[in-house]
């Protein structure tokens, strides 16, 4: 399962560098260390198409694959999806400088204000 995910990432990497490509051309450009089967790459591309990562067009007998979004667009969409979920109270991810403000408590800041007042007086 994990291996398949890595493969999807590698295939998208190839397509983001050069497009559009046929399955055979993707296979030739993949640098995964070991030789992959044609059908494996075809399955991966099929999965990516089903998940909406790539679009395809029939050319002759074979499909030509193209990324649905540019890498930057995909990144932006990912960031948006991740930020949208950060409002929920589930402790899945933590931002470096963005806390769930509604969950924040005043306790520490009250203390800080008090200390600053004391320091000022």
């Amino acid at each position, binding site marked *: 399962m994990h291996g398949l*995910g*890595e493969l*999807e*990432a590698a295939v*998208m*990497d190839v397509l983001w560098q050069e497009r559009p490509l046929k399955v055979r051309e993707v296979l030739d450009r993949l640098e995964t260390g070991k030789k992959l089967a044609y059908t494996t790459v075809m399955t991966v591309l099929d999965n*990516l198409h089903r998940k909406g*990562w790539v679009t395809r067009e029939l050319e002759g007998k074979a499909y030509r694959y193209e990324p649905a979004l540019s*890498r*930057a667009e*995909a*990144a*932006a*969409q*990912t*960031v*948006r*999806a*991740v*930020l949208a*979920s*950060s409002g*929920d*109270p*589930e*402790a*899945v*991810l*933590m*931002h*470096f*400088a*963005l*806390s*769930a*403000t509604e*969950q*924040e*408590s005043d*306790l*520490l*800041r*009250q*203390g*800080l204000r*008090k*200390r600053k007042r004391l320091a000022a007086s």
Partner: protein
Amino acid sequence: MTVAVSLLFGAALVGWLVPRFLARRVVSGGDPLVAVVAWLASATAVVATTIVGVVLILLPGHGFGQSMLTALHNCWSSIQHGSVPNLEATTGALGALLLLGLGVRLVIVSVRSAQRRARTRADHLAVLRIAARREGETLWLEHDDPLAFSLAGRPGVVVATEGLAKQLTSAQVEAVLAHERAHLTGRHHLIIAIADALANTFPFLPLFKLAPGVLRELVELVADSAAVRVCGAEAVRDALLKVSRNGVPGTALAMSGTSIDVRVDRLTHGRAPTSRRRQLFSCGLAGFTAMTLPVLVASGAMFAVVTVACPA
């Protein structure tokens, strides 16, 4: 009965006062990790003391010869005979039922939220794995906003945007990544999940009610001080200022009055983090103190009552 009531009183007092005390300690420069340990230990101690208190009410005279079941049976038979069961048995039975209900609720809430977290995490990872470039343990997203976050799990991942690398110096980037890695190694996501579950189950005492908010801020301070150990306070502070000032489009982040203030203040005026060994010792001490505190308070209260009520 006296012992039971003092225990309940001790638990309530600790649940009421400990948050304020810990917040004051942290704001005046105390180690946030010690505060986290003390908070969680106090929560455990308050729950345990309450359970013991309720059980003692159900065992009148603390004579353990009469079991809880007999007490319940007596209570039931007196109801059947049309008489009012004695006060101890009623309050005890009610308390036990309430505790049992809360316990079941805690389990259900925890399991449900764990499942939800696993789903959200899997969704995020599925997208991140493809959209981001992997470099060692960090996933890099081709995005201009300077952002960094950590995603819980085994193993967790740190995600950063290329905007972060562009707008921050390499020392500052290293500080941000060290901060995020500290969240993962410290299992901070789990701490927050526990805090959420506790607050959902026992929404009465400040110790439980405030736990999600305060612990969220405390683990940020813990991660900051871990990053300070690696990269120095200046790099962490400058990174924090840069990233938070930039904010994120679509999410209003007002600088003043957020936990960022507390963090920046600490990074500017705070002392250097103590050695690991000393930190471990302080955490152990704080945990032990917090665990025994409700019982100590209860004994104190009982002693006071006895002195006042029965002057020798």
